[in-house]
Structures are given as C-alpha cells and as structure tokens.
C-alpha cells in the first residue's frame, strides 16, 4: 500500500506538484496519467525522496528513507538508461544487490526473467531502449519487492514487449503487490490498469477506478439499430437526446439505454440492436486533461499546410 499525503514541489516560480494526496492499493495495477510536464516523474521522485519537497509518502506505513535495504520492499524504475556504459548489466545489478544483501543467484534469476539472460554480461551501452527497459524492470524486481513504482516502463518496447510487460504487471498485482505505473500509452493503460491517478499541472484530476474515470469524463452513447428507425429520431430528440446517424444506426447521446429502450417500446419501434457505446480511456483522458496541457502543439493543417509534403496528408 502506498499512501501519498500533501506532496508539493516548487521550482522557483513554477509549482510542479501541488499538494497531491492519493492511495495506491495492493492487488491492482494503478495507472498514473497526466500530460507531458504535468509532474508525474517529479511526483515519483518526491515519493522516493530523490527530490526534496513537502508532503509524505508511506510505503506499507514506512517512509522510504527509513527502510533498511529498500530494494527488498520497494522496486523502482524511473529513468530509461541509468546505467554506467562500461559496467556489464549483470554487474550493475550485482552492485545494487550488494547494498541490499541480495545473493548473485537472484541477479541471474531476474536477468533470465526479463529475457536478458543471454546478454547479461554485455554492457548496457549496446542495449536498445527496449532492452534497457527490461534491465530497468530487472532492477526493480531485484529484491522481489511488495511495491513497484515504474515510470513509463513500456517506452521503447515492441508490441511483444508491451504485451509481456502488461502480463508481468498484472500477474504481480494478482499476487497482492502494489503496482504504480505511469504510461503515455493510453490504450495500453486501458488494458493494464484497474485504478488511476490522473494529474494535470501538478494537481489531482481524478483518483479512482478506470470505469468511473471514463464515465465521469465522457458521455456514453446508445446505439440503436432497426429496420425502420427514421421516425424514432424525433421521439428521442423530444426526450432530450442528441441523435446522429452512423452506418445505418442511430447514435444517441444524453439518454440512458433504459430510457431509449422504453421509448422504443412505447412508440412501437422494432429494434435489432440496442447497446451502449463506451468511450475509450483516451477520450476520457483528453476530456479530463485538455485544459491542463503544459505544452500545446498546433493542430495539423490538412491542405496547403506549409510542413506537409505535396500530395501527402498529415
């Protein structure tokens, strides 16, 4: 269990993390989302005492700095390639293991587990970003900790690697561990995370389960399909629904599925499909954090844009 209370960090005039408080429960994967520059990495560094700021984070009731041999209780992956280029991957882990009374046998175990067993004696400077991420995960898992903090662990991984990472984290969570993971891959997070902490400009936007987040920040739609639904539009609109036609179906916003079904029944409209269309996590994220973007890029110009090569859509 991770309990963060009143985390606050200021860089001169900029408040990077603004009194964040949240809990990360064991047994589930908790995703940490926010736009670029929203303070995710700073929050994680504050939690681990790498950055100085205000507030307190407790890992199973203990402050990180007071834990003796912390790798055995909290595993962390914060940077993509925090390795000395001429020290072999195995020796990098041996060094960390030596400070936490972890036998070399465990080093070989985690190297095999992350799929780097064959290259463990090679230097990380020759590793791809994906391999470096695997080594980072091996580092986090070295002490077989109950808590994992991972900052963008899927960066640089190929689709197989991402799938593998997702399975690993879900399996670790199922073992009752506390998993706190940030990622920009929202589709991946939708498959991986059970709960979310969403921040924007250092402030809390949402803390709860994924379904509630999507529900809270998007409008679910009802899809209606039938042999003759043309006349049904007026009835739906009369009840306050917003209707648009899409691939021979009506897509209704602003009305619950029960209400639409009841309306069809009372107006005698035959239906072949009546279903709810859920918004994606990405749509919810865009809706929730749209105003909190730190760095806003210009929208691409489709035709006649200065950067688009001729005849090529952006």
């Amino acid at each position, binding site marked *: 269990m991770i309990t963060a209370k009143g985390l606050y960090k200021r860089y001169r005039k900029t408040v990077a993390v603004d009194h964040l408080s949240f809990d990360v429960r064991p047994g589930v994967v908790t995703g940490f989302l926010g736009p670029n520059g929203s303070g995710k990495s700073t929050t994680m560094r504050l939690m681990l005492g790498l950055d*100085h700021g205000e507030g307190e984070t407790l890992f199973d009731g203990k402050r990180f700095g007071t834990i003796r041999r912390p790798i055995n209780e909290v595993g962390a992956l914060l940077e993509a390639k925090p390795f000395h280029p001429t020290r072999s991957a195995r020796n990098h882990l041996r060094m960390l293991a030596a400070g936490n009374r972890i036998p070399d046998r465990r080093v070989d175990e985690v190297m095999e587990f992350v799929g780097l067993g064959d290259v463990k004696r090679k230097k990380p400077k020759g590793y791809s970003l994906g391999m470096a991420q695997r080594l980072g995960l091996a580092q986090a898992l070295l002490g077989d900790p109950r808590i994992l903090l991972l900052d963008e662990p899927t960066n640089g991984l190929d689709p197989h690697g991402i799938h593998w990472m997702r399975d690993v984290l879900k399996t670790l969570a199922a073992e009752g561990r506390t998993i706190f993971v940030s990622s920009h891959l929202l589709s991946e997070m939708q498959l991986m995370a059970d709960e979310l902490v969403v921040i924007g400009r250092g402030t809390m936007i949402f803390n709860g389960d994924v379904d509630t987040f999507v529900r809270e920040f998007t409008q679910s739609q009802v899809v209606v399909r039938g042999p003759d639904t043309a006349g049904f539009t007026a009835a739906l609109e009369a009840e306050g629904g917003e209707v648009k036609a899409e691939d021979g179906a009506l897509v209704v916003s602003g009305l619950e599925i029960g209400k639409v079904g009841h309306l069809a029944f009372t107006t005698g409209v035959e239906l072949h499909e009546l279903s709810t269309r859920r918004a994606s996590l990405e749509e919810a994220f865009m809706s929730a954090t749209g105003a909190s973007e730190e760095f806003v890029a210009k929208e691409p110009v489709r035709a006649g844009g200065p950067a688009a090569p001729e005849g090529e859509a952006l």
Partner: protein
Amino acid sequence: MLDALRFEWTRLLTLRSTYWLIGMGLLVTTGVAVLLGVAGRNDPISTEVLWIALNGAAGFGLPFLAVFMAIIGIFACGHEYRHGTIQPTLTSLPQRNRLILAKLAVVLTTTLAVTIVQMAINLGVVYVVWGEAPGLFEDPLGTALIGYVLYVLLYVLVGFGLGLLFRGVPSALVVIFLMPLIIENMIFGLSNIPQLDWLVPVVKFLPFTDGARLMELAAPDFGPGAPDFDLFSRWASGGVFALFAALILSAAWILFKKRDA
C-alpha cells in the same frame, strides 16, 4: 553501514576505469624508479634519489599517483551523475550520509593501499638496482614519505569533493588540474614581480603548494633575491591543504543533502 560499504566496494571493482587508472599510476611511478635506476646505477644512491624513486617524482612536482587516484575520487560521485546511476543508487541506499561515508571509506582505503603498494614496488626497484635504501626510516626521508602518503590521500579527498560538488566529471577534472598547474604557479610566479608583491602573503595559503610541502625533504630555497614568503612548517602547510579539502568536501556534502538527486 556495512551494506553501503559492500555496495561501494562492488561499484568500484566493477568499473574498468578503476583498474586502468591504478595500473597507469603504478606503471608511471615505477617507470620513474626504473629510470632513476638506469641513470644512476653506477653511483651510490643518495637520499634525494631514494626520495624521488619512492614517491615516483611527486617530490619534484609530478604527483602521478595522486592525480590518477584523484580521478578515481572524482569518478566516485561524478560518474553517478554523469551516467544517471545516482537514481538507482539512492533508491538502493537512500541514507545519503551513509552513502557518502561509504564512498569516502572505500576510495580512501583503496588509495592508501595503492600508495603503499606503489612505494613497496619502487622500494623493490631500488633494492634491485642499488641493493640498499639508506635512511629509509630516518628523518627527513621517513617523515617525507609519511607526508607523501598523506598528500595523496588529501589530493584524492579534494578530487572526491569536487566530483560531488560539480555533480560531474569534466568540471572537477578541470579544477583539479588547472588550480595547481596554472593558477597556483601563476600566483607564485607573479609574486616575484616587485609591483605585485602584495601577492607574497598569499603564497603560503596556496592549498596544492602547501600540500606538496608535506612530502618535502628539506625546506624550499627559492634562491637569493626571492621574497620572504614566510611559509608555514611542513605540518602546518599540510593543515592548509587539509582545510581546503575539508571545505570543498563540506560544501559538497551539504549541497548533496539539500539538492534534488
């Protein structure tokens, strides 16, 4: 603390640079002894020659071993920041005081061991060439050799402090080479110019120059017409160098505790 020492010891031993820096230091200092042996093998060995042979030319201003070991000292913290390993290091050993103490203990112990080994190798060369080492344990040679060991240790301490202070390698290297070779030599040289005689009282506070006096065989003689620098004694000069090392290390340590990693 034992965990931190184990960590730091493994860190040092798993770096290739540790081996080539120590190897280079031993090779160059042994080379000095061999060179002296080749040049003076037909003459009886004097105290001055023995002194230079044992400290590998550090006595006349070329502290090879101290420089190579100081680079190891710079790497102790400088590498951590240069390659970003400070993050896994501090998530492995979050108690910052303990980490620095362990780093200091390992670097200084290694330096002490390597310096003693270097002197033993050079003594071996002296015995092979001349078959004797007259006055080895007597004053002033014995004291000068103890001063040499202290000088190397303090030089490494300065390097360590600079690596931690600058949180990197290049700036620390520049300072540790630039200061004794250029800045202090320039101040010393300029102080001999009558128009700049206000620099004379500064000379006895030049830290690296003072440090080098720890290993001197005799008080320096700057010749007739040289200003009276009113230099400190051997141990007081060593104290200036030690104070300089302590100031750098204290500043670096305080900042290490206060700064974000």
